[in-house]
């Protein structure tokens, strides 16, 4: 299951319209607990996530998994994307894509609907859910195929405290089952709560990486120190 790790990004750059958005960067991601990607807004966090997931066009360099043909990822976008269908149908969709037998689909969908607490609205159109409900649905949908990696791009940035708490609990449970959670966030409190590893991105470059205790207690670079202090970095 986890033979796909490590993911190696080598001399990787992403350019859009001539401007460098990310890179050049080098990074090795192995198995582990939640990996938080932190940094100021516009620093390239989203791009980094999309590159790792494989949905961003790379201008230079490589991004490769040890065994890429087994890639099974989930991805949650900052603004929750739901299909114009019912909650239950949103959840069954990824399983239908891979031709899962109907009884299995039903079991999985029922299980996840309960886990995210949307049983009462399982037949309601997903477009009529609140922001928090939608994001939980998106996460459940991303997890329903039991992926090796779950990418999340600032999923709680527009949500209230209650939803955030529920989602963080869900993510910690997920990490505990062996799925690598890789998440971008600008909420430093959230980073501290969830991280076991951290990547600090600024101006499209990876400035510092390390385990959570190291990063938060003994930051090495000046930029990270300033960032952790709360300075606005340009």
């Amino acid at each position, binding site marked *: 299951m986890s033979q796909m790790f490590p993911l190696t990004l080598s001399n990787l750059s992403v350019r859009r319209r001539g401007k460098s958005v990310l890179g050049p960067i080098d990074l090795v991601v192995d198995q582990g607990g939640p990996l938080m990607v932190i940094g100021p807004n516009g620093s390239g966090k989203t791009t980094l996530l999309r590159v790792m*997931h494989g*949905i961003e066009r790379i201008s230079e360099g490589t991004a490769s998994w040890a065994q890429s043909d087994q890639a099974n*990822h989930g*991805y949650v*976008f900052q603004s929750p*994307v739901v*299909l*114009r*269908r019912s909650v239950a149908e949103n959840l069954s*969709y*990824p399983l239908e*894509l891979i031709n899962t037998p109907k009884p299995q689909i039903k079991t999985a969908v029922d299980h996840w609907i309960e886990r995210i607490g949307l049983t009462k609205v399982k037949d309601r159109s997903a477009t009529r859910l609140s922001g928090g409900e939608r994001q939980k649905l998106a996460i459940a949908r991303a997890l329903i195929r039991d992926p090796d990696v779950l990418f999340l791009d600032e999923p709680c940035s527009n949500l209230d405290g209650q939803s955030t708490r529920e989602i963080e609990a869900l993510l910690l449970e997920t990490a505990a089952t062996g799925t690598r959670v890789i998440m971008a966030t600008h909420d430093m409190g959230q980073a501290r709560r969830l991280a076991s590893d951290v990547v600090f991105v600024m101006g499209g470059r990876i400035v510092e990486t390390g385990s959570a205790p190291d990063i938060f207690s003994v930051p090495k670079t000046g930029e990270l120190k300033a960032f952790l202090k709360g300075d606005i970095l340009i």
Partner: protein
Amino acid sequence: MPMNDITQGLLAALHLIVTFDAELWEISLRSLQVSLTALIIASAIAVPFGTFLAVQRFKYRRLVISIINALMGLPPVVVGLIVYIMLSRSGPFGVFGLLFTPWAMIIAQVVIITPLIASISHQAMRELWAEYHDLLISMNTSKWQRIKTLIWDGRRNLLTAGLAGFGRAIGEVGAIMIVGGNIDHATRVLTTAIALETGKGDFALALGLGFVLIGLALFVNIAIHWLSRTEREGRW
């Protein structure tokens, strides 16, 4: 006096309907048959094509979209002439003997309404694709899976596209006059009958038939909307 003509037309329409006029039923049924068949065939071509255009990037995509939009402005009479030339005994497909049969009319109407349905479908699918783009790519869907998902989730807008095509088809007269021949008991439909009665100067009857045609089109539209509403509340 014009207003008098309209009242007479309404009365003529009522009279035809209430007395179950046999010829009226015959040509109305034929109108429906021809246009509904054309709608089904045209949609089967136009909807996947419009969706494909929304989803697939290729070099001449903009050109193709422009061509489809331009084709919408094709005068139906011109389409009729071209189809006639194709189906004529002296033409390439004359051997099938389709000229002056309902199938010739269906073919002409398919040619006329396919660009319209494709264009509206494409617009609808483009919007939906913008919404679903990141998600579907992230889930590693195949092109075919994307098309199926878009068509299913966008089906209400596609229905609107279909109804627009149907309206265009059932009101069409120029092309089907040429390729159908308006033959009594064979290829006469509501619109060609209206043209015939107008030419005879029988405005009241022509108007009457016109009101029946409008009623028919309304009925189909309402029926479709009612069907789709029951889908929304219940489960299909």
